């Protein structure tokens, strides 16, 4: 039997929240209905006047009442290090560490023991916050989001830091978007609706399949994320593919589909097993759950299998990201999407 637990990131319900159909409590209620026991929060998404309410007894007591009422555990707090909050400079290292510590404290105030940080967070900021994280019993998890991957030159830099410092309060949060067998169907359908041609779609899909087959050239560590990303794209044949799409008469929808295809990537599920000691939490990213509980892009069963093999005891946190490909033209039903995804996770875990 596996000890893997299930969580929902409230990020998933963003379309209902935007429309006013769900408020924060509504999202928690829907989370509970799926059978998940963990909750992941973007405070800056659903707590108005962030961070003021978190500093008040009143809000915190409301929050913990909700946790009890819906039988939920605060699992992961998603932070955004706004280190370019002013347009005329990047915040100094001290200012950034102070902001990171603020987020660690806010997470802790709401009962979270994991904090998600983004790849743009400078290593010095992480190191400068680690003692405080330990003191507050919060683990900083670096989100490994496509096009980044574990077992890469990029990840090695962080591994070196983990080993050098011996920290138990920094590790990785894989985002399952790094396990895309192919481009999500909702993205392809959007391209079709917007006028992409079958010929161009095939060029892009074939190129993705070929990258997957040959293995993605991994992204390098570079403080200039834009530069690293462009090098990554070129090394993975973006130019050739774009040329082919152009030669096939690709219009804006084709070009957009082609460009977007580089935001998805495939890593071997074995990466999870290799790095399990440094994985505290997981974003179970998905794009479209069919009625038969199939996700056509993310390799849910294969990845969950790796987690089971590795003996993972943390949470898999449903993170629905299909809405953005629908909402321009169609209704979004995040509630049903998350429900299906939780069912699929449950089955894969073998509860």
């Amino acid at each position: 039997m596996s000890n893997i637990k299930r969580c929902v990131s409230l990020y998933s319900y963003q379309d209902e929240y935007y429309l006013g159909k769900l408020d924060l409590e509504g999202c928690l209620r829907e989370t509970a209905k799926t059978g998940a026991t963990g909750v992941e929060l973007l405070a800056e998404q659903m707590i108005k006047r962030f961070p003021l309410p978190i500093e008040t007894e009143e809000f915190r007591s409301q929050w913990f009442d909700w946790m009890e009422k819906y039988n939920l555990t605060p699992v992961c707090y998603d932070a955004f290090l706004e280190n370019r909050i002013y347009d005329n400079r990047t915040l100094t290292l001290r200012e950034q560490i102070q902001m990171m510590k603020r987020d660690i404290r806010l997470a802790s105030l709401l009962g979270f023991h994991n904090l998600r940080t983004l790849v743009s967070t400078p290593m010095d900021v992480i190191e400068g916050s680690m003692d405080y994280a330990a003191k507050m019993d919060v683990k900083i998890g670096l989100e490994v989001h496509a096009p980044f991957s574990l077992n890469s030159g990029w990840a090695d830099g962080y591994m070196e830091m983990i080993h050098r410092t011996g920290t138990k309060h920094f590790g990785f949060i894989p985002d399952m978007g790094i396990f895309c067998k192919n481009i999500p169907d909702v993205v392809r359908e959007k391209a079709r609706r917007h006028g992409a041609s079958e010929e161009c779609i095939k060029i892009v899909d074939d190129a993705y399949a070929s990258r997957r087959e040959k293995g993605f050239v991994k992204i390098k560590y570079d403080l200039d994320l834009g530069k690293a990303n462009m090098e990554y794209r070129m090394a993975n044949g973006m130019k050739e593919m774009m040329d082919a799409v152009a030669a096939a008469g690709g219009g804006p929808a084709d070009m957009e589909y082609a460009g977007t295809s580089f935001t998805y990537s495939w890593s071997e599920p074995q990466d999870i097993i290799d790095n399990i000691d440094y994985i505290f939490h997981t974003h179970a990213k998905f794009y479209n759950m069919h009625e038969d509980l199939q996700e056509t892009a993310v390799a849910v069963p294969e990845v969950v299998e790796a987690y089971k093999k590795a003996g993972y005891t943390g949470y898999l946190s449903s993170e629905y990201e299909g809405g953005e490909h629908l909402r321009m033209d169609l209704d979004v039903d995040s509630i049903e999407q998350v429900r299906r995804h939780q069912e699929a996770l449950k089955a894969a875990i073998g509860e």
Partner: protein
Amino acid sequence: MAGRPIYNPDSFQNIREDGKVVGFCFEMKAQYYRSFTLSILRDIRLNVDGEDVNRDDIRITVNGETFTLEETRTVIDPEYRWEFGEYAAVSVRKEGGLAQGTHSLRGMQIIAPSYMPFQIEAPCDTEFEIR
């Protein structure tokens, strides 16, 4: 359904001051998945009926406080975050305002979350009616 609404359709109207029409305004929601400080709202671009609006003529009102786009550069107070899912009022100084009838608006919200290697440009086009 025609896609997720961005604008409050009932909000488009001319602005009167001292009995004179001095501009027009409307309400819109930010096209991002979380709230943000106005300091990272790096631009609002508007084109009404084919004519670009001068940046200096644009104001944004959040939580009862109105800022020029130059002023937003230093607005980091939690009181003035553009909350996710909430309307902000955008107003444009324009002598005489807009004529009654239907108008077309091409809008663009530009924000710069610190972790993005590029700015995010969200096109927000619509038709609207001034009564």
